[in-house]
């Protein structure tokens, strides 16, 4: 009988079952579908709007709008730029806040723990799910933007910000690089979210708190008097992905940004662990 063949209680079986279950919980939920639809609507809007009335010229910063008519890939970049300050962080915040606080709120946390899902393992799986969601959300925006852009404006060689033209494949690769870099930043925010989620039993409150952290970081970054603080801010290097679109690639900002993201992820995952493994679950 199979129940007898099954390993005796306590056997450590490595399996992705719990992670898959976690992802099913995130991607099978209608609320999250609505959120992803909003994320996908932005590149759609941009593509259609630019098609109807092409823009004249650009201001400062990486302005991808002006390049859209020359190459559809820039719809993806424009959409990512528009969504990075609020929409993408909001989506990640909602998912991250839900991880522990959502289960505590429903009471399912106590049943997960008595299964037993060890607390450290639970945090690991939850964080993996957050990161996967951050990657998926970024790729969704890029894919919808690139797909629509290429359909409406065509592809071909890509003119970089430094004026140089590179082949289409190289342009696509750089777009993927931008997505990976943005996802790193969002994953770091997700770690902050995981920690916040261990502090509360109210997922909505958690979401608000995470978004406030994100917005505060952007705001502090605009205050010149706080220049000494800027390099340590979570979002300080977020917009440096434009450097990937130069030739040669300007790596210093990207490297700094990746380091800051890794540091935030490490610190806040540790904080979440310290908090969650010692906490009373009395919901």
């Amino acid at each position: 009988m199979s129940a007898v063949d099954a390993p005796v209680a306590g056997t450590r079986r490595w399996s992705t079952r719990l992670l898959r279950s976690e992802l099913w919980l995130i991607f099978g939920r209608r609320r999250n579908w609505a959120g992803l639809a909003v994320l996908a609507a932005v590149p759609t809007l941009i593509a259609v709007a630019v098609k109807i009335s092409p823009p004249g010229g650009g201001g400062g910063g990486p302005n991808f709008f002006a390049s859209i008519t020359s190459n559809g890939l820039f719809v993806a970049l424009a959409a990512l730029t528009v969504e990075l300050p609020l929409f993408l962080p909001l989506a990640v915040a909602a998912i991250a806040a839900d991880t522990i606080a959502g289960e505590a709120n429903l009471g399912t946390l106590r049943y997960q723990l008595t299964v037993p899902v060890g607390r450290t393992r639970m945090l690991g799986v939850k964080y993996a799910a957050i990161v996967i969601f951050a990657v998926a959300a970024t790729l969704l925006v890029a894919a919808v933007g690139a797909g629509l852009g290429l359909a409406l404006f065509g592809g071909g060689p890509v003119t970089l910000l430094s004026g140089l033209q590179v082949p289409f494949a190289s342009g696509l690769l750089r777009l993927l690089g931008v997505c990976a870099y943005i996802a790193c930043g969002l994953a770091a925010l997700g770690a902050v979210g995981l920690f916040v989620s261990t502090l509360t039993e109210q997922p909505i409150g958690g979401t608000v708190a995470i978004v406030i952290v994100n917005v505060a970081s952007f705001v502090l970054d605009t205050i010149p008097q706080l220049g000494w603080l800027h390099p340590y801010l979570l979002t300080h290097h977020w917009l440096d992905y434009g450097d990937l679109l130069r030739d040669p690639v300007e790596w210093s900002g990207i490297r700094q940004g990746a380091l800051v993201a890794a540091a935030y992820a490490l610190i806040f995952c540790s904080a979440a662990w310290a908090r969650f493994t010692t906490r009373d679950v009395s919901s």
Partner: protein
Amino acid sequence: MTAVSESGAASESGAASESSQPAASQTAPGPGHPAGSWAVESTRLTKRFHRQVAVDSVDLAVPCGSIYGFLGPNGSGKTTTIRLLLGLIRPTAGTHRLLGQPMPAAAARVLPRVGALVDGPAFHPYLSGRANLLRLDAGDRAADPRTAHRRVDEALDRVGLLTAATKRYRAYSLGMRQRLALAATLLAPRELLILDEPTNGLDPQGTREVRALIKRLAAEGATVLLSTHLLSEVEQLCTHVGVMHLGRLVAQAPLAELRAGAVPRAHVDTDRPAAAAEVLRGLGLTDVRTHDAAATGVLGSVAPEKVVAELVHRGVAVRGFTVAAPELEELFVSLTGEGFDVSG
């Protein structure tokens, strides 16, 4: 039902193959199980919340194979004790063992063999009953994923929920939710079931079925720790009883012993209670009380037949005469007080 015998066999062979286990979890529990083999054993377990001691030096001892009724008024600390046992909250002081293993150190090894229902059902509202159980099973490293669907459906079948398996949990009624929580405790063969008010919200059939289920599980060798407010449930099911009051375990004994320890009272139905009480006092009965149409007193060493003879001799009409130990309910009230206010 096949499911019953199957999981019974599995639980026995599961225990037998675990050679490192102490005798506690190996022996087929029953009347002959060795003394000192406890499924749940706590030593001065204490939990202090902000301004209140919710669980106060509780020495719980649940023998293997028993059905242990865990009683106590609202707010007396039953659920808090259960949370402590399962490692959901940390004790302020004290230690405990489950199935002979120290907790929480051995939680990963012990908890897969423990089924728990704590403080009512809790599931994801937008998932179906079946999907919710599959999610719980996904977290269990000791469970075989290949048999997950079969075990989930068996568990749903055992609580009569198979026909509602695909319904969203949100649409479940109170009783269906309670049944789903019970099904979750049956996903794997269990050696210990910790059930916090399992029949809460169930219809009469559901209540009967759940009691029958608990009896079957116990007959298969599982130990059951059952918190409940239904004293009839305790009388029908339990072999042992523990009573909580104000965070303390004020009584813990085999049910029969608790009953035997209760002093029997003589109860005389009569139209002249005052006269009857006089006779009872004269015979040396203590704690004599008069009621509307009855008088009662603690018999002590006085023979019941002598009481009847004396009553008749004195011309007191005896309409009925019984000697009985007090009901469990009276015992319970005598242990935990008459007051209606919760202990907060």
